[in-house]
Structure formats: structure tokens, C-alpha cells
């Protein structure tokens, strides 16, 4: 699949704003095929935007995360309505876990995102994430870039957040929105508390249900603990269509901050460094085991190990894995 001739043709069709070509390229990217060409294509499009999107509004990439059933897809469906009403185009990448055993997946998110088939300004793609719960698909950054290059002003990612995936989400998204919902019963389990650290915005979703007050109060005490970042908390009900405009407004504000604010950029760079460093270490392969042994036996100092990894990091391109 995807010989040189074919990919060249796809790229041309993409440049001519052919939606099917976009769809096909997304598939290739998701499978890690033809990455070089696609990167090139995206880069070229960034330099010279496609027709119809000169002077287009600033781009937004928003991640909507939260436990299964918290209402992510429903909310994304509502956001599509609101954004379309405001005249913005929207693309969605909806991620669901894939079975580690069979590789199969049941992708049912778009089902909850009613879209009008005659509206070309909405694009929804379902993705299976091999890494299990919480992970995001490989090359999602490239898929986002493709959608942006094609002209979608907003790209929304739906992911189940509760794993190592959240920091990865931060690299692609300007704003990470975490959904929580009122729970039946008295004891609310905040094992997701770790998630609060990556969230830029917390939404108490299904605010039409009893118990929304209580959850909101609990979250506010949690996020206002000393030493925590200040995180806005909003109440939204997708069923009652309440709080949606406010949510969009908050996302806008946070997105513009996230670009300008140095502290946030610093945080993102810190995450990136951490990840690359670990990645480089793992890429050392057999050499890594030797390093480990040497370090354990005291033959190698910390500094010596770091130097090895840093050297590796400098010499490898990020896509090499």
C-alpha cells in the first residue's frame, strides 16, 4: 500500500483540497506509513495555505478527556454545534482503546456526534489506540497537522484519560479539558486526581444530574490546594445545552494564554524533554542494558550514563522509533 506514485498523487489531490485524499492520508499517518512525505506536505501547506483559508482564524487543538461514559462524545457533538454556529470549521479525532489481544476495536464515538452530512466543515475520524486505556495513537501530531493544513480551524481530540497518555496529549493540544461527572453514592473516588495536574480546565459534566454541586465543591477544594496551578472549573450539561458557550470562551482564553505564557511553554518543553530523554534511553537497545549493569555495579557514574543518552538523543530524529 502506498507506493511513491500513489502518495504523490494523494498529495496533489490534498493540495487541491480533496477531502478523500485527506481521509486517506490520515489513514496512512495513523499506520505510520509515508511519514516523510506527509510531513513534507504538511510543512509546505503551512508555508503556503490552501485556498480558502488565507487569513484564517487562529488554530485551536483541544483535548477532551475523562473516564469512559463521562460524556465526552456527547459534549464534542455539542461543541461541534456551537462552533459551527459561530462559523468555525471543526475536525474531531475520536480515540477508543483497541484490544491488545486481537487488535480489534469497536469505535462508537461518532455515533454520539450528530453531524449533517451536507456540511463539509465538519470532519470526524475514529481511531483505535493500541496502547490501551489512556494512550493516544501514534503520529496523532501528524494527523492534527494534516487536518489543520486542510483548513480545519478547530481540532478536537477525544481520549480516555487515565494513563501515561496524558502528558502525550499535552504535546499536541493547546488546551486539555478534563470531564468529571456527579457520581451516585457518597464516596467519590478521586483516583483520577493525577489527571488534574495535566488539565487546563475541569468541566463538571452532566450538571443536570443531582450531585453536581457536591462534585464541584470537592474539585474546587482539590484544585485550590496550595502549590497547585489555578485551574478553572465549569459546569456543563450537554443534555440541557447549558454552559457550552462559556466553555468555548474559556478554551479560547486558555489557548491564547498557552501560546503566550512562558510558564506554560516551559512546562510543555519540560514534558517534551522528559519524554525524549526516556525515548533515547530505550533506543539504546542492548547498550542500555550494559549501561544499567555498569551503573548498578558502580562502574559507571550517573553523569557517564547521562552523557551516553544525551549523545544518543542528539543524534536521533524524534520519529525514529
Amino acid at each position: 500500500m502506498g507506493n511513491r506514485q500513489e502518495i504523490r498523487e494523494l498529495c496533489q489531490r490534498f493540495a487541491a483540497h480533496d477531502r478523500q485524499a485527506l481521509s486517506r492520508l490520515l489513514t496512512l499517518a495513523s499506520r505510520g506509513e509515508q511519514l516523510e512525505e506527509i510531513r513534507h506536505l504538511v510543512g509546505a501547506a503551512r508555508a503556503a495555505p490552501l485556498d480558502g483559508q488565507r487569513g484564517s482564524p487562529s488554530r485551536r487543538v483541544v483535548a477532551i478527556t475523562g473516564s469512559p461514559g463521562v460524556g465526552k462524545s456527547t459534549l464534542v457533538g455539542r461543541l461541534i454545534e456551537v462552533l459551527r454556529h459561530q462559523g468555525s470549521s471543526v475536525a474531531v479525532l475520536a480515540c477508543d482503546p483497541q484490544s491488545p489481544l486481537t487488535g480489534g476495536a469497536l469505535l462508537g464515538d461518532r455515533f454520539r456526534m450528530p453531524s449533517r452530512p451536507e456540511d463539509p466543515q465538519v470532519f470526524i475520524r475514529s481511531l483505535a489506540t493500541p496502547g490501551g486505556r489512556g494512550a493516544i495513537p501514534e503520529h496523532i501530531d501528524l494527523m492534527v497537522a494534516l487536518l489543520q493544513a486542510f483548513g480545519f480551524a478547530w481540532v478536537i481530540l477525544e481520549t480516555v484519560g487515565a494513563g501515561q497518555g496524558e502528558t502525550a496529549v499535552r504535546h499536541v493540544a493547546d488546551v486539555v479539558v478534563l470531564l468529571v461527572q456527579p457520581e451516585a453514592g457518597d464516596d467519590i473516588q478521586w483516583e483520577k486526581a493525577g489527571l488534574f495536574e495535566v488539565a487546563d480546565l475541569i468541566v463538571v459534566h452532566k450538571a443536570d444530574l443531582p450531585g453536581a454541586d457536591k462534585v464541584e465543591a470537592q474539585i474546587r477544594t482539590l484544585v485550590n490546594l496550595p502549590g497547585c496551578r489555578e485551574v478553572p472549573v465549569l459546569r456543563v450539561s450537554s443534555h440541557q445545552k447549558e454552559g457550552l458557550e462559556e466553555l468555548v470562551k474559556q478554551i479560547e482564553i486558555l489557548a491564547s494564554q498557552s501560546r503566550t505564557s512562558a510558564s506554560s511553554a516551559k512546562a510543555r518543553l519540560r514534558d517534551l524533554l522528559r519524554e525524549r530523554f526516556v525515548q533515547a534511553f530505550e533506543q539504546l537497545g542492548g547498550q542500555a542494558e550494559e549501561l544499567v549493569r555498569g551503573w548498578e555495579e558502580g562502574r559507571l557514574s550517573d553523569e557517564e550514563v547521562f552523557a551516553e543518552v544525551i549523545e544518543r538523543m542528539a543524534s536521533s530524529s524524534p520519529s525514529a522509533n
Partner: protein
Amino acid sequence: MSTATERSAKERWEQEVAQAMSRPQPPTTVSGVPIEPLYTPESLPGFDYDAELGYPGQYPFTRGVHATMYRGRLWTMRQFAGFGTPRQTNQRFKFLLEKGQTGLSTAFDLPTLMGLDSDDPRAVGEVGRLGVAVSTLDDIRQLYDGIDLEQVSVSMTINAPAIVIMAFYLANAQDRGWDWKKLRGTIQNDILKEFHAQNEFVFPPEPHVRLVIDVIEFCTRHVPQWNPVSISGYHIREAGSTAVQELAFTLADGFHYVEQTMARGLAVDDFAGRLSFFFNAHNDIFEEVAKYRAARQLWAETMRHTYGARKEASWKLRFHCQTAGCSLQDKQPEVNLIRVAYQALAGVLGGCQSLHTNSMDETLALPTEHAVTLALRTQQVLAYETGVTNTVDPLGGSYFVEALTRQMADEARRYFDRLQQQGGVIAGIENGFFRREIAEAAYAYQRDVDAGRKIIVGVNAFTEAEEKPIDILVIDDTVEKDRIAALRAIKAARSNEEVRRHLDAIRRTAEAGENLMPVLIEAARARVTVGEAINAMADVFGRYDGAAKW
């Protein structure tokens, strides 16, 4: 109780069982419940005849709701019918009455079931196909033309727009001079199972339930012999549930309606006696019989002790029964006749009040007259030739059946607890609980069949190389055109001004939270259509797109 000799007999038996050949798969019911090789008094520890069984017609009604059951009166043989135009269905009704059927059952087409008129663009290709198309009062008039509605009991299988159709029915009856107090029949009007299983709903669960209660309230006051709801497990089972899920979810739905009606200020004893039920009759005879018996027990117990009903009528669970459509196969369709006969037997051994037997060709198309006649004959043979009607609850006291009945009731209670924990029936709909449970059961069943752990004759065993085709009914495409033309003519003749006034009244009443039946009856007379009435309500209630995931 076991003496030395008895014990040795038992031991000997156990030894023989251990040595004997047995099937590779341990036997289970259709629902996958393991079954013991033998049931004895030991299977029923602490069994108390009076508390658990009692006498037929008496609390807790395990053995039946009437003292004499079929010795007094046979069940009502009621075959579901409807297709094409109201006139065509009217002819089928008259044909069935001539053949000896004792009650009518009306099937509506999909557009009508979804609250759409025949001329709605979404109805294209579906008008009059799976049932009769009804959009206006004139359609109802034609549908029951020439049938004495004070004599024949009429059942109408419709849910989302049930209140509108009921309003049409009452307007027609009144216009024709029939006395509402003498009308007998049932409207299904059970929206909850639509959310669990059949997906014919329009509004969100809460306003939809409110409409159900409007019908119950109105009929309680004005149409006292009518069953304003038929709380249905049938479709839950068809969607793939187990027998226990069918039992538990149906009763839970029933309890929800009782609570909501009481919340309207009606006394439980004023309406509970008119609540009726509708269960599936699947292939596993004993599992089904146990299900019906457990249902009666659980309902009686809860109505009496939880809701404080005092009248015996309020404790009695009366039910209609239909053989399992999902058990019918398109391979060797005549074999379906045999399945249907055994399923009907289960329904009758379980004490049903009325019965529909499916036709053998229903997996292929709508039934032909020949197939419908055979299905009815199946009931007649059962009633008049087999002797199963000669005594009340002939399986009562069987160690096996009593043990299964107990087991069913216990498992249903566990489901009630689980529902309570998640906040009740509506919460269970919203969070997808019902649908998940049912879909997982359906998938487990299919895997058993695919792997040959469950045998289906003619499908994964005893197959024929050549299938012999049987005649099927073909609906001609003129129906859709006919209906659209008829509807256009009615719309052209009515006063649009008047229609607008009635639609406003519907919106206002919906907004105010008052009973919608009176305004709908008036609207019917002004030829407001089903679709228009539903749209007016949707303006207030909204539409439900939470067609839950799995």
C-alpha cells in the same frame, strides 16, 4: 427426612450418574443457566406451600391469577395483524374473527410507530410495510369499521405516539356512539422497554414516561375496562436478553410506572388492577414457565408490601404472551411451526391470559393467510386436544419447576438491587446499563450457537442441502402512494386555522404539565395528524438522540 434406605438409594443413583455417559456440554437453559441432572425435595430447602404457592386466584398467585384458570375460560387467542392500508387491515381483522379469533391485535407500520406521517420524507419505502399506516382519525375509523368495539377487545401495539393513537381511538368510539366505559382492550404504551430494546422513541425518557402516565390516568378515570399499558418484556427478550433479564427489567419498568402514577396523586388500588404485562415465550419450556410464575409472585409481593395495595386485583399480574420471533429461522421455515407449538405450550403451562402464536414465515416476510391460519390452529389444538387445560398449573409442585421459579425470583431481586444502586430505571437507561446487559447476553448466545454449544435445528445441525422455498406475502408498492394521496386529500379539506389552534393547545398543555389526552382528542377531530401532534410535543419536550451506544 432421609432414612438410611433412602440415602443408599440416592447414593446408588449418584454412583450411576457418575459412571454414565454424559453429553460433552453440561446442559443449560436457553439463557445459559446450568441445570442439575435431578431435582428432589432437597432442591427446595424450607419449602412452604402456602407462602410460596398458595391457591390459584390467591396471593401470591404463583399458580395463576384465576381460581379455575382455563377450566373456567380459555385464554384469548389474539393474532397480531396489520399491513398496508387501514382498509386492507380491516379485511384481515374480519377474516380472523370469522376464523374464530376472539380478540383483535393491531400492528402499525414503522413510520406511525415513530410518530411520522405517511408523507414524511423519512417514511419513504416503509409506509404500510410492517403494519398499517395511520396518520389521521379517518384512518382509525376505517381500520375498525364494521367491528363492534363494545364486544371485541382490541389491542394496539404502539408506544412512542401511543397517547395520540389512543386519543384517535377514543374520538372515533365516541363519534360512533360506543360507550367509553364499555370499551375493552389494551394499548401497549410502554416506552421504557423502547429505550432498553426496541428503539422506537421520540422524546427523552422523562417526558416520554409522563405521556405513559397521562394515558393511565385518563383511562383510569374515563375508560375503566381498558388496559392503558402493557408492560413488555417481549422486546427485551427479542433483543437478546436472558429470561431473568426479561423478567427483572420488565417488572422494574412496571414498578417505575406505579411510582410515577402514584406521584400523580392516584391511589394505587384505583389503577393497578388495569396494568397488564406482555412476555416472550422462548424455546426452553421450563425456564419460561418458571419465569411467568416468578413474575406473578414478585409482582404480588411488591404491590402488596412496597406500594401498599390492598385490593387483590392490584396484586395480580395478568399477561399476554407471544412466541419468540427471534427463535424463528429462515432455514427450513416449516420447522418453525414446531417451535411455535412448544413455545405456545410454555405460555399456557405458565398461565397466560392471551396468546399470539407466530407464523412460520415471519423471518422471511409478513405472514400469508395460510401461515396465519396454521398459527391460530396451533393454539386451537393446544386448547381443545392436548388436555393441558384440564387442571390448574399442572407443573406446580414439580421439584424442578419450583426450584427454577425460586432461582429466577432471587436473581430478579438481585437485578432490582443493582438498579436501585445506580439510581433507578431512568438512570439505568441514561448510563446504558440495560442495553449493555442485553447486548452482552445476545452476543454470548450467538457465540454459543456459532461454536455449536447450542444446537439450532436446520441452522447449525440437521441442515438440508436444498432449501424448499415457501410462498410469501408481497406488499404492493401502491400502498405508499395510496396513503400519501389520502393524507393530502384530508389535509386539503381541513381548516388549517383550526389545526394551528389545536397544535398551540397541545404545546401549551405540554408546557403546563397537564394531562394531554383531552386536547389530543379534540385535535383528532380537527384532523391533526399523528406527525403534527408529535412535532408539537417535541417543541416542548425535545427529541432524544441518546440512542445509547451498545
